[in-house]
């Protein structure tokens, strides 16, 4: 039996989201992942947004980047138009961006769910994968964070292309 965090990690690493997969939702909780929870009684003249219940289910990292969120429950596209791919998908930079994005999404989730241990474990795992991806990228194309320059033969931090100039960095 996989725990919620194992399932989250397996999908971050490239698996697929199962429709209606709600591994982290308690059996007695009849809310699906598209719904959050609210207080049954709350003071008047206040506004309440439902709390997201769990960091699962989650998209795989590439799909998360395409969709703009790791969390299917928050994925609410305009006129149901969503991205099926992105220009760097399948390149070392595209893979790195996807992992950076998973880290960002789990970071914001944990900012409001700091006691969610499964999400914190998933974050640590995502950071480890992101570090690996960054090392792969830096070897091929040069520094992405300033300290990466320590592994370079020359001072190449200032070499182009810069991020707003799409070019050979993609490996294409």
């Amino acid at each position: 039996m996989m725990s919620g965090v194992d399932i989250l990690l397996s999908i971050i690493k490239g698996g697929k989201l199962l429709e209606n997969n709600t591994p982290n939702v308690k059996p007695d909780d009849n809310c699906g992942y598209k719904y959050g929870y609210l207080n049954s009684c709350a003071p008047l003249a206040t506004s309440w947004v439902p709390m997201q219940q769990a960091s699962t289910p989650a998209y795989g990292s590439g799909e998360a980047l395409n969709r703009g969120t790791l969390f299917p429950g928050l994925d609410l596209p305009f006129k149901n138009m969503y991205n099926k791919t992105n220009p760097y998908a399948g390149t070392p930079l595209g893979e790195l961006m996807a992992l950076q994005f998973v880290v960002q999404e789990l970071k914001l989730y944990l900012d409001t769910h700091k006691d969610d241990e499964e999400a914190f474990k998933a974050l640590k795992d995502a950071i480890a994968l992101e570090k690996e991806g960054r090392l792969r990228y830096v070897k091929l194309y040069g520094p992405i964070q300033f300290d990466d320059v320590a592994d370079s033969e020359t001072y190449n931090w200032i070499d182009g292309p810069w991020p707003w100039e799409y070019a050979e960095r993609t490996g294409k």
Partner: protein
Amino acid sequence: MFSYVKSLQYPVKISATNPALAKFIISQYGGPDGELGASLRYLSQRYSMPYPEFKGLLTDIGTEELGHFEMIASIIHQLTRKMSMEEIKKAGFDTYFVDHTAGIYPQFASGTPWTAATIGVKGDVITDLTEDMAAEQKARTTYDNILRLSDDPDVNNVIKFLREREIVHFQRFGEALHKTMERLDQKNVYAMNPSFDN
């Protein structure tokens, strides 16, 4: 302190020159509900935020918005870097061109320069988080409108990503407000300002 990561948050790769699109997308660079204002709003609200975890949330979302500021500039740069004088005149981009050539300047689509008058820092946790939720919705509507106006798939790919970020940020600010409300006196949540009176 801030340090730079030499990659965009999401790829921007636009093939076609199109100053007509740049004319209105620039509003998300320096317009009333744009990414510059978003970043400065959140980063400036941190100092009067009473709870440490939401100082973190404002820092993390404010920093992400600076990355979006860079993505919008990348869109405008790629839409205008190779434009001809003929394309400039045909698109009505001449009024921008005369002041900024093909440089990227933070302004509204209507030409007003970016102004701090479009952001709020009230120094009250309920008020500031409510402002932030409204700001995310205003940016989401602006991206909806850009998707209605733009027919360039390369541009729209990026805009769809940025629009979805507004929804995620709305949820996180809403959760912060939810948790703030729970900490306050349930008989009168407005009895005092926890940003100032504690």
